């Protein structure tokens, strides 16, 4: 299970933080400070994994932004890297060529996307299409509250339910 995710800039400014384990503010600040420092000190060609305290930290830099996740010891580091990548893909699709500024100014959107992708520290939905649909239809809410119920039914993953048959049937 993912313990937390941090997004920070090359200058060490925190852009996004999501904690999946209950920690006090003081601990959060301490962890953030230490981790940002450690990760920023690493050179580009170095390994993306860190053993940090009793956790594994997986980080990756996209342009000026560092994505950094802490996972438990038995978790798969490589798939965590791909989680980061998938999140970036989602952001990119949503914002249309995402850049750090999008995340700075629309951080709440970035949080919404994250919540549709990861829930409680686990990958909730790994189909890119489904995540984006969920976000889109929630966004429609804002633009036209009156029609949302009607729109919802149509927008939600059209046709998928009928196509996909259950894998596991007894």
């Amino acid at each position: 299970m993912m313990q937390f995710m941090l997004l920070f800039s090359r200058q060490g400014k925190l852009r996004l933080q999501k904690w999946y384990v209950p920690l006090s503010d003081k601990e959060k600040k301490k962890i953030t400070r230490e981790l940002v420092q450690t990760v920023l000190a690493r050179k580009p060609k170095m390994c993306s994994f860190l053993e940090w305290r009793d956790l594994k930290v997986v980080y990756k830099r996209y342009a000026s932004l560092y994505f950094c996740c802490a996972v438990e010891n038995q978790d798969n580091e490589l798939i965590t890297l791909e989680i980061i990548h998938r999140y970036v893909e989602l952001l990119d699709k949503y914002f249309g060529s995402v850049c750090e500024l999008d995340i700075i100014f629309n951080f709440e959107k970035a949080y919404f996307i994250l919540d549709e992708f990861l829930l409680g520290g686990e990958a909730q939905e790994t189909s890119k299409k489904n995540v984006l649909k969920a976000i889109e239809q929630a966004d429609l809410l804002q633009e036209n509250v009156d029609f949302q119920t009607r729109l919802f039914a149509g927008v939600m993953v059209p046709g998928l339910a009928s196509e996909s048959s259950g894998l596991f049937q007894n």
Partner: protein
Amino acid sequence: MSDVVEKTLTALPSLLSLDSQPGAAKLSSTSKLGNLIRGITELTSKHEEEKLIHRELASIKEQVSSPNTSMRQMKELMVRAIYCESLGYEASFSYIHAIKLAQQGTGLEKRVGYLAVSLFLNENHELLLLLVNTVLKDLQSTNLIEVCMALTVVSQMFPKDMIPAILPLVEEKLNHPKEIIRRKAVLALYKFYLIAPNQVQHIHNKFRKALCDKDPGVMTASLHIYLQMIQENAEGYKDLTASFVSILKQVVGGKLPIDFNYHSVPAPWLQIQLIRILSLLGKNDQRTSEIMYEVLDESLRRAEMNHNITYAILYECVKCIYTIHPKSDLLEKAAKCIGNFVLSPKINLKYLGLKALTYVIQQDPKLALQHQMTIIECLDHPDLIIKRETLELLFRITNTQNVVVIVEKMLEFLRMSTDDYTTIDLVGKVAELAEKYPSDCVCFSYKNYTYAPDNEWFIETMNTVFSLSGDTMQPDIPNSFLKLLSEGFESVEEDRKLRLFAVDSYVTLLKGETGKLPQFFLQVISWVLGEYSHLSEELKPATVLELLQKLLDRKQTSSETKSWALMAMTKLCEGRAGVSVAQQVSETYISSMDTVLRQRAQELQHLSQDSELRARVLPRDADLEPLEVDSSLSFLDGFVSEALAAGAAPYKPPHQRQEELSQAKVLSLEPYGLSLPISMSSCSIADRQSPTLLSMSSGLSGDSTDLSHKGGSTTLKFEGVKRVWGKEGYLAQKESVEEAVQVEAPSPLRSTSQQAEVVGSHSQTPTLTPTPEPEQEKQQLASSLFFGISSQSSVCLMGKSGPTPQRFRRKAKGQSSSSGATEQMSNSVVFTSTTVDNLLCNNPPDSTITSEVDVSSSKHTSELPQGLTAANGTCDIEAELTDSDLKGSSPPLSGDNGLENADPDPHENLDKPQGVCLSSHLPAELSGLCRSEITPLCTLQNLDLSACHVHREDTIVLVVFITNSSDSAVQHIRLDLDSELLEVSCVSESPAKDVRSVAVYLYSLTVRRPAVHVELAGTVSYQVPVGTPQTAQFSYKLPLTAFIRPLTVSTEEYGTMWLAFSHDTKQNLTLINDGQEPLVATLNVLRKKLQLHVVEVIGVEGILACKLLQDQPCLMHFRVHEGALAVWLRSPVPDLPDCLIYHCQRALQEH
């Protein structure tokens, strides 16, 4: 990859001029948040930022509490509050408004409200209770998006106590027509399961329904729950293995909708989750493992594409293959995979390859040989993470021959490390290695060449460890170091040298710059100097005192260290100079504010003036007499039981906790029957005094059951794998296959192969380029690191024949002196079977039987047909023997004595008839009971002493017969029995003052301290009418089994007792396979031979209980595991489990 966000701005202030940027374009230029963010980025100092934010917060605070603020404005304010919080400024006033917004807002406002709540509060926050109603309402909403929002927030945080309030609603959502709702509901239940597992116990069948959901997303979500549940209890879900396998097969086969593909790999997240579940299910379970071999093979085969995501799957597969019951061709493929990882130029893969190698190497050290050069390169890798992992790998393959090099490498790393966590961990490991190997130098010095670890090495290594560790060290390292130093190893002379060397090196250290030495180290130095500086002849106490005084005067010295130094001075203040220094120092500290220091100063003052008192209080070499310590802490029993009654959790010893922890890990880090008991703390091993010289190696490691299982796989051969590295290093290769590998390999490997070609007679020798020097160094390093991991010694690494498993060869002490069969004293007596004796009693001495007994060797005795025993029971003592267990108890005696009989007893022939006669003198109440054979103790002028012990249900009675063979009466017979281990109380003495024929003495025995065999020493003195008093000494030995009785407890009682006992031992025993169910057969043998009570047998497990007379229980847990019997013994009595294990082994060996 990063092209996705390539055109991101690097500097924020420039953003103002960049309206064309997509990010900026989306901003509402007038938005207050936008202004705030811009404002912040324009600032140059932290101070200005603080001012701005405080102003902002004040304005937000004012607006949120105003009744005129609309929900829309509130949403805006909340976003700004989130921003301020994320910058690190507290906005706790807004928390309640966030909850209000979630409650009253609609659409996006509600969404922001929920988001703010999930960011502001954690699940322990009390305000969260106010959210419950809102969640309840939204869960019932007809608006699906509101339901989604509620479920999202619930899956992230929810007050534990309020789960029942919403549980029915969430459960209901599992049947919702929309898959997104079902999916979120499953994840909400997963969250509930994590924080309050018993709340969702009743809906386990609904989880199964979710697993069968037609939507792959819902099914995937349900796997989170299953992974968790299987981690906790794999046994309960074995029936699902086939289903998981079939899902994985379909996923791998591309049966999922294309939406779930990720970079054209079908649902990798789902695959990995399934493989993790399978590895948990297949662990230690051959049958289950067999179901999954095929699909794992398929996964390995399919995941060949060159993309990170396929590597992720491969890595998970490899972990799984090495976790489940081994299958050779899969292992071979996995080993190849690991090879690819290790050799990969991609650093992430290299790292994972090393990790996998670290794990696998314990099963197959040869794999390390293949990658020797890569490992050496990684050791000098610029990335510390890689370096660190390499050291971890080397730590696992340490043996006596390479320990010096490996420790040196670790110390090198320590010198550079700045991270406390790493330092602590590494320091512990170095100390473990250093302490583990010095004892071996004795046995290895004759055949070892250059790298023999010796005393100096040990002390120097520990010095470096202490000085590098700073003050972050775990306190048990200096403790065990001092313990090691004071208890010493096998040879007195070696001990003296070791201590002397320590003293010398510390004196040198203290004479130098002490400013940087950590306090821990200074304390160790003080103690050692105080204790052992007298060993050095050149060193005058005054010099040491002076050094210690200097230490005291230093400002940086902590008061704890000062008190250590004062104590050392107290031990040393001899002579006039010493006393005057002592006086001077004590005067300084006698008025110290620190009470401990004051106390020490007082002691110093008094003891320095009274040397006689000092010699008594602080005798030299006092450590030889161990202090009496009640290690079971029995005086706390009352307190503990009260606490338990009050509902406190029972105490778990550290290794049990550790074990539970390690069981939780998928990738078990326990060593597999290797030389290193890695996970055990050094203390627990040091404390256990092994009563036997039998291999305790498997008992040393944390989870011996696992070991034995994996031990099987160590014998697997990787046929396809060529041996590239032999004992001396690289072996010249001729096979073209190997060449291909080398060509692919990075250049260093290639150049070594070239070098080898020079040596070997390779036809293709291209150029005779001399190997560059660094290469040579590397090879040297390789040969020293991988020394002893060649094929032969790999056998020894497996812990079968190597001398390494025994961690500390401490001096034999206490009971161990009476343990070894070889240590019998000349006068001591051994027994033969009661069975035989009884038989002789009843049947007239038959020549054939007697002769059979005479030649009885250990084998012979045990081969006595079972029927004979039974016959004996029936013909002789059936009437008296009501307890069937007691009847069955004769075989163990014979079994045990069979062993002792191995050296032929000359008395035996003579004594048989005597035994027959003497047995008639047994007191009536003892005559029918099980007893040992009557054995002669000693013979004097006209007296013969014999003895036997009789098993009564509640006690052991020692019967001593004194036979007067002369005509004259013997007077004033005095019999004194004494034993360190036994409590001897006299039951009755023979009434006659002077003995004419036979006098009988009865003693009841109880065990004070358990040992494998307990021995009594006795003196007899007497007087004949004419003549001087005579005395003689004798000894008598009984096995501990004589004191063991069945303990009848119920399974529940057993459970509570089990938790309460602190001393334990684990070992693997061999199962008896004679047609019946092996567990039952084995337990029966043990029950009969050792007098145990079988509490319950469930499946492959059995629990037994017994007690040591009088009331010292010992519980035994048996589990059949991969053809062996894993035994776990627990008792409140120290050493009892160890001794019993020994007898269990004996009993089974002789069966």
